[in-house]
């Protein structure tokens, strides 16, 4: 069958519909402007068929893509954030939490559970950027720790997929304490002989990058993901430096030696299967 270059079509296609707030349809590729139906995009693992741009994945979509059918059993689903500081900025934190739960159907920004990838049992800890920017507060920290503990107990590796803006400001200093908390969990996991595989999705920044995301035995990222302790806007504002075009991107991190590989989404499952097989063999 002849290959049809639909990109030309797309360039001349009418502007995607905008909603009442003037936002483009969420399935519009920010990189090449192509737009897709939900099922088209889902069939392609939410990777743009034209340019390879990786659309964000919800935690449950990610688990569905990675875990063997029917293997995933969620754990700690009932954990909910409290509002220990009674935090109130322009809106109360409690309200933001309720709203996030309603719109995402998740208790917090991470989903954990036992599962299998390519036949290898493992513990999955997957973040969801749609829940308050994937920010890490007490619940995300606790869930990650429980994932590590469960993995150590069952003698399986942890596979974590990160997508986070960093620590959650609304829980103040307690959010910062989730950095050492998760770091200690990784230390315990490693002492118990467990492996940690980190897959960094767009974006993995600040507190999550500065804790468990960079402590994997193997650390990989999706193409084009922003992986930075400080994001480009703040670096620009603070230092007035001219930023390189690829500032903080996975490709730049790879070049500087901070990643083991950049794995496109269609290859991720096979990559993890191979890796988990190697870790399983050593035990």
């Amino acid at each position, binding site marked *: 069958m002849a290959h049809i270059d639909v990109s030309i079509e797309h360039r001349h296609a009418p502007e995607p519909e905008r909603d009442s707030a003037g936002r483009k349809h969420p399935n519009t590729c920010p990189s090449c402007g192509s737009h897709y139906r939900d099922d088209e995009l889902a069939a392609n693992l939410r990777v743009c068929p034209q340019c390879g741009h990786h659309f964000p994945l919800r935690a449950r979509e990610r688990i569905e893509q990675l875990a063997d059918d029917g293997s995933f059993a969620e754990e700690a689903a009932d*954990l909910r954030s409290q509002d220990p500081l009674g935090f109130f900025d322009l809106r109360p934190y409690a309200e933001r939490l309720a709203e996030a739960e309603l719109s995402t159907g998740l208790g917090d920004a991470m989903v954990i559970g036992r599962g299998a990838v390519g036949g290898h049992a493992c513990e999955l800890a997957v973040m969801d950027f749609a829940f308050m920017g994937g920010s890490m507060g007490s619940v995300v920290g606790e869930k990650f720790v429980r994932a590590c503990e469960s993995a150590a107990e069952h003698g399986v590796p942890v596979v974590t997929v990160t997508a986070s803006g960093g620590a959650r400001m609304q829980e*103040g200093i*307690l959010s910062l*304490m*989730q*950095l050492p908390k998760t770091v*200690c969990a990784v230390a*315990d996991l490693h002492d118990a002989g467990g492996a940690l595989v980190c897959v960094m999705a767009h974006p993995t920044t600040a507190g999550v990058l500065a804790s468990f995301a960079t402590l994997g035995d193997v650390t990989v990222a999706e193409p084009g993901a922003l992986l930075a302790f*400080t994001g480009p806007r*703040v670096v620009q504002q603070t230092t007035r430096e001219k930023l390189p075009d690829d500032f903080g991107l996975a490709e730049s991190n790879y070049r500087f030696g901070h990643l083991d590989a950049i794995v496109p989404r269609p290859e991720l499952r096979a990559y993890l299967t191979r890796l988990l097989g190697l870790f399983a063999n050593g035990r």
Partner: protein
Amino acid sequence: MAAEDELRLRERLSHLRSLPLLRGARLSGELARLQRQLDRIAAAPTDEEIARFVELARHEQRPYALDYFDRLCEDFVELHGDRARADDQAVVAGLARFDGRTVVVVGQQKGRDISERTRRNFGMAYPEGYRKAMRAMTLAQRHGFPLLSFVDTPGAYPGVAAEQHGQGGAIAASQALLAQLTVPVISCIIGEGGSGGAIAIALADRVLMQENALYSVISPEGCAAILWRDAGEWRKAAAALRPDARHCLELGVIDTIVPEPTVGAHTDHDEAARLLGDALRDALGELEGVHGEELRRRRRQRFRGIGVFTEALATAVAGDSAGHEPL
């Protein structure tokens, strides 16, 4: 509101009193100190007081890490460089004698005048600084010296080169190394405990905090810029974040509030150092009899327990129960 807070702190105190103890002898001192602290801080700080802490913690004349090394230690020998790339002067580290024993000290160092501030990058470390700190930690571990860390940084440096050299990874690696040590680790927040840059050297057995210091997930200005979309609203952000010592103690994030001279540490460096020295000596005394493996286990357990969340119907305040095993 203040009365409620006080009640909570009193409950916490009585909870601590009821805990089973390994070393009872030390406890009375610990409780007495908590009681004294409770008396000092019976009223919760007002929003205005929190804003004042922000100013005091950043006061130009506040004693910095090197000022304390000078006053608290003898025979300080500074170590330089990360043995890979550079000597980041925002971090100072070395060997010294404290209270008769050899310790390793590490801290962030701001500068006193413009040229020193520039040289020390206002206490904002590059990854090289954290790797220098890790060298010092490794040294402490190798020779069994206790590690004392002095936290005073607005945050890790947010620059292009810092990112390229792996800022996030360096902060994580530094914490991971601290989680491995089998020597006593004591941290003190002596000024600004700025986010990731601070916690990189503060994963400790005991975390002390001076009464006018700050310990926060983000600077009040940064928080205001994001949530209020105006950095000028930093007072509101500070009040909401509650980065003061009293609240950190209440949340189980720190173990002890170290008193300062009446108006603040900047008024009398010698007295500030004496008060900090007393607190460090007490903390070190509590830790020194404990076996290394046990020390490490409890250090990890300490952080394992921090966080506030609910699960189903039961409310868990992990910071109150699992967290603080008295030594």
